[in-house]
């Protein structure tokens, strides 16, 4: 076959050793099926493309013209296929796992859908958002499976999925998922417009998109990432919008507020008393994670009169002969803890045990006994460390860990007023943040008591039956919240 179009296609795909060119003969015309075997379903190709052509008895009775008509009208094969004239598009189809059929005498290439089969891992438990009671499955890298998991949760025709392709080289399928009638239509259009205007070489994770969607330079995450289908489904029902990217199990959700980063799916699967208690603990420990080291330093160096007197003597005696100031001590311990944490995340499994032993013995015991750091400081740092892990969403935990250090400096140099000033600055910054028109600290600032049923506490479900949609206030009855 000497068609120039085919030649152009084969040139484009030159030096790709995994491409299979299967010659076919269809009613006297020669043709070729081009596909990459590792990313296509060979059974589908054999059964639904090749076999009908080679073994279908009825075909033998057809004339070429009839077949060509059927081909052109899209009913010739069991698999759906689309015609394309451009060899560039055909090449794209091949590398995306869609077999391309070229028949002499036909002006177009035919790209088959539904034959793509990427390697994917099995659906496993969620590793990073662990829940004791409740669904355990998590998203995987394959967008088809992820959508299937979501469809399993929400079975309603109003669940809409808009598809885009982003990334010149990765051509990642990106889906904007929302429930029509619950989510704000303007927001959907806005997000779609922004995503469509992204031009980048490749997208490997949803976070690549977040920086284009919101150009606010802030430490705080303006999108919520999750790998749990139940979390996504619940958010969709709150009027939020999910953005799913092929190739990553993390799904992005917008709009969000900081409170949603402090909530876990588990809260909804436990008894509401237990859930409310755990939420309160979580909130207090989130504050402790941010403030404890700086408060400790500020109080022991500037305001010792706050400490109860027996504790004062104990801490003072523990600090005897410690060569460093409280601020330096805290810095050293905190940095060591950060290093330990990062090492624990990256370390290969065989060596993992060693790290925990070294961490415990060296830092905990030996440093105190050698008189390098004081025991109360180790306690403070450990409690802070534990507190930062209590936060269900790791992005917020990272931010709070980071903000601890400037607050420590301010507390260590200016005392309590430094801590208050620093906290106030952080507060002022966070209040003025917006995630797509939703104030970041809603319902705390602005204070909307009606939404507190699901913030610090988790009121039982019947009480929330007539709840407002915090993320689409225009849809609320009587315009509440607007």
């Amino acid at each position: 076959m000497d068609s120039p179009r085919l030649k152009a296609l084969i040139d484009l795909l030159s030096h790709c050793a995994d491409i299979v060119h299967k010659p076919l003969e269809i009613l006297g015309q020669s043709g070729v099926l081009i596909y990459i075997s590792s990313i296509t379903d060979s059974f589908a190709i054999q059964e639904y493309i090749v076999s009908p052509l080679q073994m279908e008895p009825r075909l033998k009775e057809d004339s070429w013209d009839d077949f060509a008509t059927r081909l052109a009208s899209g009913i010739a094969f069991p698999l759906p296929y689309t015609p394309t004239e451009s060899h560039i598009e055909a090449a794209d189809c091949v590398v995306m796992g869609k077999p391309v059929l070229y028949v002499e005498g036909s002006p177009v290439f035919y790209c088959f859908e539904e034959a793509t089969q990427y390697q994917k891992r099995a659906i496993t438990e969620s590793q990073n958002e662990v829940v004791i009671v409740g669904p355990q499955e998590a998203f995987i890298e394959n967008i088809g499976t992820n959508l299937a998991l979501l469809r399993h949760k929400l079975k309603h025709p109003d669940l809409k999925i808009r598809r885009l392709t982003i990334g010149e080289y990765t051509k990642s399928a990106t889906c904007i998922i929302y429930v029509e009638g619950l989510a704000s239509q303007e927001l959907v259009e806005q997000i779609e417009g922004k995503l469509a205007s992204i031009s980048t070489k490749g997208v490997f994770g949803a976070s690549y998109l977040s920086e284009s969607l919101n150009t606010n330079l802030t430490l705080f995450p303006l999108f919520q990432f999750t790998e749990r289908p139940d979390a996504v489904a619940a958010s969709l029902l709150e009027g939020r919008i999910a953005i799913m990217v092929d190739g990553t199990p993390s799904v992005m959700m917008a709009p969000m507020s900081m409170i949603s980063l402090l909530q876990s799916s588990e809260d909804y699967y436990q008894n509401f008393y237990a859930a409310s208690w755990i939420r309160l603990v979580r909130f207090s420990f989130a504050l402790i994670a941010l403030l404890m080291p700086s408060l400790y330093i500020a109080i022991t160096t500037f305001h010792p009169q706050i400490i109860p007197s027996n504790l004062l003597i104990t801490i003072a005696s523990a600090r005897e002969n410690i060569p460093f100031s409280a601020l330096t001590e805290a810095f050293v311990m905190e940095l060591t803890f950060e290093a330990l944490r990062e090492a624990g995340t990256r370390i290969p499994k065989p060596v993992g045990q060693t790290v925990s032993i070294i961490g415990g013995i060296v830092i905990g015991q030996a440093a105190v006994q050698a008189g390098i750091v004081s025991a109360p400081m180790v306690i403070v740092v450990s409690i802070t460390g534990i507190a930062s892990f209590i936060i269900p969403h790791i992005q917020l935990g990272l931010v709070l860990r980071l903000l601890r250090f400037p607050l420590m400096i301010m507390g260590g140099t200016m005392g309590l007023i430094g801590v208050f000033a620093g906290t106030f600055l952080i507060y002022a910054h966070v209040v003025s943040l917006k995630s797509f028109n939703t104030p970041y600290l809603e319902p705390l600032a602005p204070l909307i008591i009606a939404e507190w049923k699901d913030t610090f506490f988790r009121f039982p479900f019947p009480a929330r039956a007539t709840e407002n949609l915090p993320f689409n206030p225009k849809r609320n009855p009587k315009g509440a919240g607007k």
Partner: protein
Amino acid sequence: MEMRTSPWQLFRFGFVYFNSQSTVFLVPALLASSTYNAWMGVLGGYLLSLILLGAMIYIGSRYPELPWLQFGKSLMGKWLHGVFVILLLAWCVYYTSYDIQSFVLFFGSNYLRNTPPWFLQAVIAPIIMYTAMRGAKNIIYMADGLFVLILASTTLILLLFTQQANFHMLSALPHHLLPSSELFENSLTTLSWFAEWMIFLFIVPDLKLDKNAARSLFAVASVLSLLVITGWLLALMNFGPQLARQFQYPYLEIIRSMEPDSILSKVAPLVIGIWTTSMFIHSSFLIYAASRCATYFTKAKGHRFFIVLMTVFAVCIAFYYSNHLSLYQKHYYSMEVVIIWIVVECIPVYYAAVYLVGLLRRGKSLRLSRR
């Protein structure tokens, strides 16, 4: 970007805004000037301030969508309105300097003795600048969020103050009433502390001044007077009038007089920290209003520049006062300052009066034309 409002949001903002100055710094003035009858002056000031509040709401609701800077021009004429704008601007900056200096004195002399005042002022200034730059909407959101915390800590503190209070002293109140000659003067003094209502004219593009706003602000005035009277009573009952008048910061002294290991003495700096946030909100909003006044003359440009400039002015004045402490004390409690404050706080009354006169004139001309 529309503002998320909720019921009583203006009340929360007003409460946090006023909480910083009146509740802490008015009480020593009350204790110093009277023995058992300061509450009458407070009630008098409260009632007088309601008149000013009424005037502000009246004039604000005549022009619901327009900020005062714009409709004032049409009402008073360009030059006279300009004079008032400058007056308000100067007052805002001066008040902020008082805020800063009184805070530095309060905090520095008690907890950070060796730290020079300029350091504390230099720490406060960027925070006020940053917060004022967030805009009125975000400042109101922040006050919203802080409200619960401030309310809780205020209640806690007042409850803890009752621990060592001698409640039998309450029997003295009906026997010591103020003669009416002094009543007016005391009411005027407290009026100057309570009646900063014209600042609320600056919330206008974000929130509206309507019946709900009037209700919220009336609640603010009432709760505030109640808090001041309660605080004054507790200070009196803890120390008796002769000792209480000798203290510059009676609340701190109550805290100091608790048993060393009691909850209150340990929790005090944290409560003060929470109070500090309301002071930041107060100063930031004043600077924001001052910068809006300044941009009136530059046709709404250079908003951020003016914020920085106004804050720097305020800090310079505070710095001057920190080096001339007796002058500061003299000015702070003088009658001249009371008069200035009242003149500025009556700005809505002038505008309301001019508006009413205009109405009457138009009504008269209408009647004339109908004949």
